[in-house]
């Protein structure tokens, strides 16, 4: 029978994960401000325009506003503050 040996585990140390709750949902989107957040991937602007057109044609009472961060893959606190202050909900896309 082959000898058993003891070896090291090669993995690093993952951070503790702290649970976070989702934001309360809206009862209805009627009359609400929904931000379409363009994540700046190539062609995501065109995709978001199509989402905007869909709302205009199917749910015209929803107030759609388009917004973009200043830079790809970098947090934009100013943009986030605008969405938090002036928006009721947000749709982010298109992430990879």
């Amino acid at each position, binding site marked *: 029978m*082959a*000898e*058993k*040996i*003891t*070896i*090291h*585990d*090669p*993995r*690093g*140390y*993952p*951070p*503790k*994960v*702290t*649970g*976070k*709750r*989702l*934001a*309360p*949902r*809206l*009862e*209805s*989107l009627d009359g609400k401000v929904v931000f379409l957040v363009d994540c*700046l*991937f*190539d*062609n*995501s602007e*065109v*995709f978001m*325009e*199509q*989402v905007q*057109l*869909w709302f205009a044609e*199917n*749910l015209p009472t929803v107030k759609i506003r388009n917004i973009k*961060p*200043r*830079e*790809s*893959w970098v*947090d934009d606190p100013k943009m*986030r503050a605008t969405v*938090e202050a002036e*928006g*009721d*909900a*947000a*749709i*982010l*896309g*298109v*992430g*990879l």
Partner: protein
Amino acid sequence: MSLEESGVPTVAVHTDAFARLAQSVAYANGMPTTRQTYVPQPIVDKSPADLRAYVEGEDPISNRPFMQEVIEGLSHPLNDNDLNGMTFERMTPRLMDPNTEDNLQALFVENHWTDNLPIILPTEERVAAMLKGTSHSPDEIVGRLNPTAFREFWEFDVEKVAVNAVMAGAKPEYFPVILALAASGVSARSSSTNSFATISLVNGPIRNEIGMNDGIGVMGPYNHANSTIGRAHNLLSINLQGGSVPDDTYMGTLGNWYNYSSCFAEAEERSPWQPFHVQQGFKPTDSAVSVFFGGWYTQAGYGPRETWQEKMRRALAACEQNIAPIFVLDPIVARGFVELGFDTKEKLANWCSENALLPAREYWDDQWIQTLKYPLAVAGVEPFASRLKAKPDGLVSMYEPEDISIVVTGGETQGAWKMIAGEHRHGFTVSVDNWL
């Protein structure tokens, strides 16, 4: 997810190729029920009509109408899981349960802890021997790594780096270089869809002290130190950042053979120019390792012969505009450029910058230039703003001189050169001496 934390109900839209990745990131952020919706891959190059069909079609993951998923994600009531999130800790043991060598080799492959080649099993004796290669304490924190910017960082200490160095087959005398690579914070296993690798360059006295190759076959598998240091950087990146597993923590569409091992040394004694680390502010007597993020494209040539300018203009134009090259020259080529008047690396980098030209419409017609540089251009950040002002057929420079790294190495059996994708950012050259 920060918008959710601020009280704004949010739905994220992804392409279906990234479903597992999106769910894994949400889980690691303690918000596993984040509302995610999916459209088919790809978005790039699709027309407005194609994208309208995505919007009006089905979510390919849930098989329900896409917009219904979006609207319900913002307006359907939450359940207990949504309200509590998920708190948990993941422990990494120091030692594994005893087992046979064959079973442990198989277990490491099964767990995606290797490059799928056999490894040296990290026994306590071997790891203790590796730790003698540095004066630093085994429990000293070396740094943090993550596979990409939006994923969580994992932390690691000197002993964990030693474990991976043993696995790669490295000798204890190489360990300070491997610690410096780990401390750089640059993963050799980026999860980018671009299939990037990280190439490392060693400069200073340590090269000769540990017997690195800067001669014949320098960029091939012909030297124990070069091979195992490069392999160690990859193995430690896999294991210390939380994995490099296809469809989860690795998304490179084609993959990259540089991900096995890509570490080399500069032929400082045979170069007519300053060593690379000296260009970065180190003394010639310092030892340092530099990392280059890329390893994606490679151009090659010879010379410089009579038509060298035409050849190099073509090669530069064929490089990708998003990542500048490391220009690697055999010493024969470097001396040839000196004879042409390029008596410093900086002069050659200036020439490359002035001659790496593309028509503006070609420069901007690139998905990564559109994604990463176009927003900066619109915000007025130079040099991108000026490139955006150019007429479509006007020529724009692809790179600034400081973007182009020049390294001299090779065995002088031929006057050969290569241009390899390799972005060297500020802070990417790390002291090895600090890890002795």
